[in-house]
């Protein structure tokens, strides 16, 4: 699946997007964040406060317990500050 990062999550991870293949045991957004956190120091830094991170699946906001099965694109970002 494709993963996108925005704002300081993007800066900390060091890339705007990538394709990942998490193991089948990773079923929810929360579990994906935990798995990503183990992918190196940059990821650990980006996801050090998982409760602050917002997620979207296929362009729609989701909660941390949302299932990731079938997702084409998952995005992680901080709380929004537009307008």
């Amino acid at each position, binding site marked *: 699946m494709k993963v996108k990062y925005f704002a300081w999550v993007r800066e900390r991870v060091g890339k705007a997007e990538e394709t990942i293949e998490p193991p089948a045991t990773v079923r929810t957004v929360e579990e994906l964040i935990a798995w990503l956190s183990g992918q190196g120091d940059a990821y650990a830094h980006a996801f050090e406060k998982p409760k602050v991170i917002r997620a979207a699946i296929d*362009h729609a906001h989701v909660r941390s317990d949302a299932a990731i099965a079938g997702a084409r694109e998952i995005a992680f970002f901080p*709380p929004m500050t537009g307008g």
Partner: protein
Amino acid sequence: MTSAVTACPVTIRIQEDDFDIAREIAVLTRSRTDIGAVVSFSGICRADEDGAKVAALTLEHYPGMAEEEIKRHADEATTRWPLNGVTVIHRVGRFMPGQNIVLVLTASQHRQAAFQAAEFLMDYLKTSAPFWKKEESATGTGWVEAHARDDEAAARWTKS
């Protein structure tokens, strides 16, 4: 029998270029005689954020989702209020104090619907449209933190 025009065109644009408020209102109201009220809200880059001087702001967005998220709320606004037109323009890029960032126009037969829909749209733009501000000041550069007051402002529109 001539029926009243009840169409509610919804225009959403995300762009680097500035917008011309008068022109956007003219486009929204062109050839319409059913519109009795247009509310215009513009968000402008401030030189001061909670007491700290701001030299510039950079707006980043999530292309695709930003348009879709604004559209979802614009569509919801048209179901909640009798609107005759909605325009939302959000700029991205780097802005200096005094420059335009966002424009919301709502048109209706009467002012109440237009005022309320504009507020509703701005409250959701702040809290759920995927845009992020990075601030440059004399002390450095940093991402703007979300305000609890914006979440509270959006929460008041939640139907109980």
